[in-house]
C-alpha cells in the first residue's frame, strides 16, 4: 500500500449522502410515530419534523446523484492521514468513555500524558508537568473560582476533594 492511496472522495460523498438520507428516514419514522396530522390542538408533534425529514431525504437523493455523477478521482485522504486522525479519535473515545467511572481529572491526566508521550514524543518530564499541571489548573479555575463542578472519581474521593 503506497502512501498516496486511500478512499476516494467519491466514495465518502456517496457514503455521507446515504448516511444523511438514513437520518432523514429515521426522522420521518419518528414523526409518523408521534403523529403528523392535525389533532385537537392543531398540527401534532410530528407534523414539522416529518416535512424536515422528507426534505432531508430529497436533498440527500440529489446529493447522492451528484456524487455518483461527478468523479474527479480526488482522494478523500490518504491512509496515512486517516491513521493520524484515528490516532486522535480512538484515544479520545476511550477518554470520554472512561470519564463517568474515573472522573474528569484522572482521565485528562492519562489522556494528555498519552497524547504528548506517544504522539508528540516529548520527554517524560515535560509530559508529566503538562499532564498534571492542566488538571490542577482546571480544578482551581472551574471548581474554586467559578464554582462549576466537574465529574470526579474514586481518586478525588480518596483525596477528599
Amino acid at each position, binding site marked *: 500500500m503506497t502512501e498516496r492511496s486511500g478512499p476516494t472522495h467519491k466514495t465518502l460523498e456517496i457514503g455521507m449522502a446515504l448516511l444523511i438520507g438514513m437520518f432523514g428516514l429515521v426522522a420521518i419514522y*419518528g414523526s409518523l410515530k*408521534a403523529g403528523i396530522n392535525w389533532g385537537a390542538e*392543531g398540527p401534532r408533534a410530528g407534523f*414539522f419534523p416529518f416535512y424536515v425529514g422528507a426534505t432531508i431525504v430529497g*436533498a440527500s437523493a440529489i446529493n447522492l446523484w451528484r456524487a455518483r455523477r461527478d468523479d474527479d478521482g480526488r482522494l478523500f485522504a490518504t491512509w496515512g492521514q486517516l491513521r493520524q*486522525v484515528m490516532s486522535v479519535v480512538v484515544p*479520545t473515545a476511550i477518554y470520554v468513555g472512561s470519564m463517568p467511572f474515573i472522573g*474528569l481529572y484522572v482521565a485528562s491526566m492519562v489522556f494528555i500524558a498519552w497524547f504528548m508521550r506517544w504522539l508528540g514524543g516529548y520527554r517524560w518530564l515535560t509530559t508529566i508537568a503538562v499532564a498534571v499541571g*492542566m488538571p490542577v489548573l482546571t480544578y482551581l479555575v472551574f471548581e474554586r473560582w467559578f464554582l462549576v463542578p466537574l465529574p470526579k472519581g474514586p481518586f478525588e474521593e480518596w483525596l477528599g476533594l
Partner: protein
Amino acid sequence: MEELANLFHGFAVALQPYNIMLMIIGITLGVIIGVLPGLGGANGVAILLPLTFSMPPTSAIIMLSCIYWGALFGGAITSILFNIPGEPWSVATTFDGYPMAQQGRPGEALTAAFTSSFVGALFAVIMITLVAPLVAGFALRFGPAEKFAVYFLAFCSFVGLSKEPPFKTIAAMMMGFALAAVGLDSITGQLRLTFGVTELLNGFDFLIAVIGLFGIGEILLTMEEGLAFRGGNATINLRVVLQTWRELPAYWITSLRSCLIGCWMGVTPAGATPASFMSYGIAKRLARRGNNFGKGEIEGVIAPETAAHAAGTSALLPMLSLGVPGSPTAAVLLGGLLIWGLQPGPMLFVEQKEFVWGLIASMYLGNLAGLLVVLTCVPLFAAILRVPFGIIAPLILVLCAIGAYSVHNSTFDVMLMLVFGVLGYLLKKCNYPLAPLVLAIVLGDKAEEAFRQSLLGSQGSLGVFFSNGLVSTIMALGLVALFWSAIQEGYSRLRTSMA
C-alpha cells in the same frame, strides 16, 4: 434622542471596573482562541459559556462578546505571519498579508489588518446603535406569521449565498432542524424522536454540537497534516504603526466599500467569511493596483479585514433586534441569553434596556481595547503559536470535554460531543456547511413554534404567509434568496444567448 441617553447609560455600565476587567480578559482569551487551531470564536465562546452562569447577564455578555472580538482580531495574526488562517474569515487576509510579511513588512500588514478590523467593527457598531432600536420597534408588531417569515428569510439566505452546493446546505440545515425537534414538543408536551432513550428527553443542546462540530472536527482536520512544527517571529513597533496609519486614509474608498459589504453580509446571515472574500474580490477588480493583488498589496489586507469585522459585528444586529443570529458565534451568544433567562428579540429593547445598551457600549469599548491589546501584544500571541500542536491539541480536547460536560453536568453530552466531532470532520471534508446546521439547532424550536402558531390561526392554510404586505414581502425575499443561484445562472444564460 432617547437612544443617546440610553447609550450613555450603557457606557456607564460598561465602564465599571469589574466590566472593564472582564473586557480585557475576554479580548485576551479571544485573541488566544483566534490564534490557536481548533478553538474558533463559536467554539471558544461555547466552552467558556458555563463559566458565566453565575455572573450578572450584562457582565457575562460583555466578556463573551469581547472573546468574539478578540477571536476576530486573532485570526489576522496567524494569517499574516504564518499563512495559517486561524479562522475561516481570515483566509482572504493571507492572500496579501503573508506576502507582505515575507517581504519584511509584517508590522505594516498587521497594523493595517488591526486598524481595518477596528474601522469595520466601529462602522458596524454605529449602524447597530442607529438601526437596531428601529428594527426592534418595528419587529414588536410581528405576529407568528411574520416571525416565521423572518426565520424563513434567514435560512433561505444561507442556501442562496453560501458557496457550498445548495442541496448540501439544505441537507445540513434540515439535519439541524431534525435534531432541534428531538425531545419534548413545546406545544403539545408530547415526546418525539427520542426512541425511548431517556438522555434525549431534553433534546440536543446546540452548545454540544458547536463544541463537537467546530472544536473536535477542526482538531481532526488539523491532525491529517500531522503534528508538524511551525513557528515564526514578529515584532511591531510604534514607528511602523504610525507610518502605516499615515498611509491608510488614502484607501478610504476601499474601507467604506468593505464596511458596507460587511454590514450587508453580516445582517443577512451570510457571515464574515463570504464577506471577506467578496470584499477582497471587488477590491481587486476596482483597485488601481489590482494586478498587484496577491503579491503583498496593503489594500488586499484592508479590504477583507474590514469586511470580516463589519460582518462579524453586524451579525449581532438581527440577534439583538429579531432574535435571529447572523453567525454561529452570534447563535452561541443567543444561547447564552436564553440560559441567563433573557428572551432574545425585540422585547429586549423594552424590558432589558441596561443589558442591550451595556452590550452596545461594550462593543465600542471592547473593539478599542482590542486594538490596543493586539497592537501591543503581537509578539506574545505569536509566541503561543510556537507551542507545538502536540501539546496544544490534547489540552484543547480536554477543554472541549470540560466545556461540553459543564453545560448540563452530563457525561453523556461529552460522548455526544465526540460523535458531533467526527460528524463535523466528515461533513467539512465533504463540503457540507456547518453554520446553517448549528443555526437550525438553535432556532429550530422557535421557527417551528412560529410556523405552527401561524397555521393554527389560519386553520392550516399556507395562505397565512402571504396574507398581508409585510409578510408577503419577507416571504418573497426569502424565495428569491432560496433560488438565488438558479436565478443568477438563468440570467447569465440569458445574457449569453442575447449576445
